[in-house]
């Protein structure tokens, strides 16, 4: 009887430790930070291209190509570990706007990611070919961003 109690207590402690580490090591927060950083880099590079497209920044073929290549690289990055189960707007309210539908309708979100990758690769090819080519490409990348945000991001 005593042995059973000790075994049970041990199991309970083990479970507690395991549970605590899963909750407290902050790996979900770290993943959210990392993917937010990726989003910031998207908007940083898109900002340069969008400024040129809008005419607030003078068009420069070399700079446009560099920013577009960055976007293409960002969209082609492996997303491993960035979107762990449980890092959604319900489970982590206030920390992320990533809707649970990302996980419940998977792989729908992966299709959106593939569409962005394609649009960004095309933009990288044409961004240095003049302002009109740039404008069209930026619009398509924006549509790909918006398409995913529409379905999978909670309003502010």
């Amino acid at each position, binding site marked *: 009887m005593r042995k059973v109690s000790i075994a049970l207590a041990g199991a309970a402690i083990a479970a507690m430790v395991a549970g605590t580490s899963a909750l407290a090591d902050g790996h979900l927060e770290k993943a959210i930070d990392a993917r937010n950083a990726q989003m910031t880099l998207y908007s940083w590079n*898109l900002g340069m291209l*969008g400024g040129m497209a809008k005419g607030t920044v003078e068009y420069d073929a070399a700079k446009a190509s560099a920013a577009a290549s960055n976007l293409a690289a960002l969209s082609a990055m492996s997303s491993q570990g960035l979107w762990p189960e449980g890092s959604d707007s319900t489970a982590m309210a206030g920390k992320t706007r990533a809707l649970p539908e990302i996980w419940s309708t998977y792989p729908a979100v992966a299709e959106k990611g593939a569409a962005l990758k394609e649009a960004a690769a095309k933009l990288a090819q044409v961004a240095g070919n003049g302002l009109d080519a740039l404008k069209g490409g930026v619009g398509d990348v924006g549509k790909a961003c918006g398409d995913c945000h*529409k379905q999978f991001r*909670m*309003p502010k």
Partner: protein
Amino acid sequence: MTGPMRRMLLGVAVLGVFGVAAAWSLSAPTRIDAADLPAHTGDPERGAALFAIGGCVSCHAAEGAKDADRLVLSGGRAFKTDFGTFHAPNISPDPEAGIGRWETVDFVNAMKFGTAPDGSHFYPAFPYTSYARMRDEDLLDLWAYLRILPASDRANEPHEIGFPFSVRRAVGFWKLLYLDPAPVLTVGEDLERGRYLVEGPGHCGECHTPRSPIGGPDLSRWLGGGPNPDGEGTIPNLTPAGKTISSWSEAEIAEYLKSGFTPDFDTAGGSMADVVANTARLSDADRLAIARYIKALPPVGPAE
């Protein structure tokens, strides 16, 4: 029974009958006759522009419809609200499943008074509190455009609403409180176009203005943001007291309504992505008019 007692009971009964009669008449749907319509031939081309600002597609096209399918107003999208689940109806020109049998005046009555051709009330999930501010001529143009869109034979499903909201007649009392075609803000002539687009066909207030416990717009907090009426999250406060867009310039707001890009190159998301797909079709002048009106809004502070 004594004389006074009898007279009192009689009095109560008479009052009761009057009360019921008054309630019945107060809650009666409003409608106009065909003879009340202005002499104006609907112009489908102008109607197409109103269709874009009205955002009919966002609710009445099938979920996820793309390109040409966005013009098939088959309905079917579900809207989960605090009052129950509403299903957007088929408003394509199909004579059976859609509204192909409607007369012009039926459409005007629906848009201005929220009254169905059979004389019943529509639920205000259909934003007629905003559309009521539209000009009759514009409604006739919009109707002319809706008539030439493709038909769909998708059958409607009933709304799923619990008591007491399931009593349609009671919507008449709601309308007494909230259906008012008067403009919300008093503005100068230079802001009139923007006001018309935002307060009327654009129906921005339906999401960006918070609602009372019975679902009416709280005009004292006009465009002050609030809980998302159709899901999680918060809808941004558009006034100068809000945090989201108060730092944006007129040109930046107009750009957002065109490309969906925010000034720091995030993109519109959620139901606003659908809105931008529609506002992208407006003229630059109209987008700028909207932006100007937004910049002129009276500040609405954070909710208590």
